[in-house]
């Protein structure tokens, strides 16, 4: 398993739980879950690039 696939799976599982528990209607659950997933993965990619550029 690569680091990135671990991040994606972590984001997927956490986003499902966040979506279901933090919103009341199915439509809003899905929207919030997708929002959390994109934030998780996007943050990981952005932070990875920042660390890469700092380490150069």
């Amino acid at each position, binding site marked *: 398993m690569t680091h990135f696939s671990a991040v994606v799976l*972590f984001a997927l599982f*956490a986003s499902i*739980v966040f979506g279901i528990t933090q919103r009341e209607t199915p439509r809003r659950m899905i929207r919030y879950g997708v929002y959390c997933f994109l934030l998780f993965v996007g943050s990981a990619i952005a932070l990875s690039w920042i660390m890469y550029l700092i380490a150069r």
Partner: protein
Amino acid sequence: MATEENKSAAAGGGFVYLPLIAGWLVPGAGHFLLRKWGRGALLAASVLGMFVMGLAMHGKLYSGAHDVLDILGLVGDLGNGLLFIVSRALGLGADQVQITTGDYGTRFIVVAGLLNVIAAVDAHNLRTGRKK
């Protein structure tokens, strides 16, 4: 926002903390008790998936508390309920993290426990009518 009528209707008979305790002991069970089959199945799959992946990555199951970080890890692990207790009894999980993915696995297990607590509290909120 739930109305007072909804709250009193949802809080009908029975032990009000049952979904909370069941949800903590078995991931998704709190929602199953409330007949929220789809939500319960997704929550169970997420928590169980994360826990099993943590073990598969040779993650560590905390057994004792030697410092503050160990205490926090143990509290997170305990959130998994029976999954943690049974896994400890079967001797699953690494005692020492020796490979890189083992560190990830340890975090997966802790976060699975924390997510399970959130799911159990959600079941309690559904039971009391605080959430629809």
